[in-house]
């Protein structure tokens, strides 16, 4: 076989797929078929390619049974929970977006207020349990004293209160004299003395 024939066969065998796919023009198809009919090697190759193509195309579509996708159906059925999570996430992101949109001082102020509220709540929850035992002790101790003892204690308490009142009155007077009455008196006296000076010596403010 000449090299010309070999290259022709090579070229024709390259066109086998084109022929099988129906991509060749009528003229190309005619040339191809006449060559395949005349050349045993190419006809053998063509037959092999055709058989192979038929075998591949006849391979069946595999049926996917329901049991294969049962876990997927369960996933879809339980999807409401996933959707809720997504909505929760979106709520958080919405709040974050809202905070980002407000001015900086508001963001810090809001955070500080939040921290303060949390601190108050925590402190209340911490203090509460400690008060309860004290109240319990007080109520127990009240039961231990007699009425006479209580009356005596009240009398002493009243004396102490009177003493504290007197001290506070004295303190008020002292503070009042020192910081309010005395400066006011000094200010008034000074203004009177300035007025006397003006009366005795009239101002001499002629033209400069």
């Amino acid at each position, binding site marked *: 076989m000449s090299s010309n024939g070999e290259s022709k066969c090579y070229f024709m065998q390259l066109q086998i797929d084109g022929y099988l796919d129906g991509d060749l023009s009528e003229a190309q198809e005619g040339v191809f078929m006449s060559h395949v009919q005349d050349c045993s090697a190419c006809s053998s190759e063509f037959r092999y390619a055709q058989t192979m193509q038929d075998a591949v195309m006849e391979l069946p579509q595999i049926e996917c049974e329901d049991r294969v996708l049962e876990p*997927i159906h369960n996933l879809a059925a339980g999807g409401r929970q996933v959707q809720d999570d997504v909505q929760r996430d979106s709520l958080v992101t919405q709040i974050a977006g809202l905070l980002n949109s407000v001015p900086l001082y508001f963001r810090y102020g809001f955070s500080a207020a939040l921290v303060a509220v949390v601190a108050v709540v925590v402190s209340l929850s911490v203090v509460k349990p400690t008060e309860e035992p004290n109240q319990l002790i007080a109520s127990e101790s009240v039961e231990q004293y007699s009425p006479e003892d209580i009356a005596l204690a009240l009398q002493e308490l009243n004396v102490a209160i009177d003493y504290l009142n007197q001290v506070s009155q004295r303190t008020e007077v002292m503070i009042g004299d020192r910081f309010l009455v005395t400066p006011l008196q000094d200010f008034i006296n000074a203004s009177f003395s300035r007025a006397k000076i003006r009366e005795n010596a009239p101002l001499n403010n002629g033209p400069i």
Partner: protein
Amino acid sequence: MQTLYLQAIDQHRHRVLSFAHYSLRVREDAEDVTQEVFIKLWKHWQKIDHEKLGAWLMRVAHNCVIDHVRKQRPQQANLDHYAEVEDQVGEESDANQLDQQHFKSQVQSAIKSLEDPFRSIVIMRDIQGMSYEEIEGSLELSASQVKVYLHRARRKLRENSKLRQFFEEQIADKSEAKQPIALVANNDKGSGHVQ
């Protein structure tokens, strides 16, 4: 969303499973891949373009198959053997049909042994009958690339020595009589033609 998701599953599940089956040739692995694909669909439901859902699913299936092949490579030799045995005992009929079945089984093995993207393109185009546009979308290749890869893949299949030997020994003589074209037998076998 749930209803649309279930509809999408019903519409595409056979195609996804077939693709995985012909890529891996082990039913259980194909089912695993199919489940994986539809779980990914559930996870990415909000993000994907639903007009190109088929292409998206095939792309995910293609990627899952590649991942699966990478993970399973050491065990694959045994699995191939089991698959062939299953195919052989699966269909009992006359000798000719048995030969055809055996040939198809060999073809499946040959397809599976192709490198990617040749394997995926042959499965999508020749087995599943997908259009070139769908394959382009699924594998993110251009139209010309798909055509070139498809021709190379078919050629690689034809160059498979086991397949060729089996064809020449078992099928060629029997199928010669059924050929639709008038083949003229010349006595110039072994004339140095390009194979």
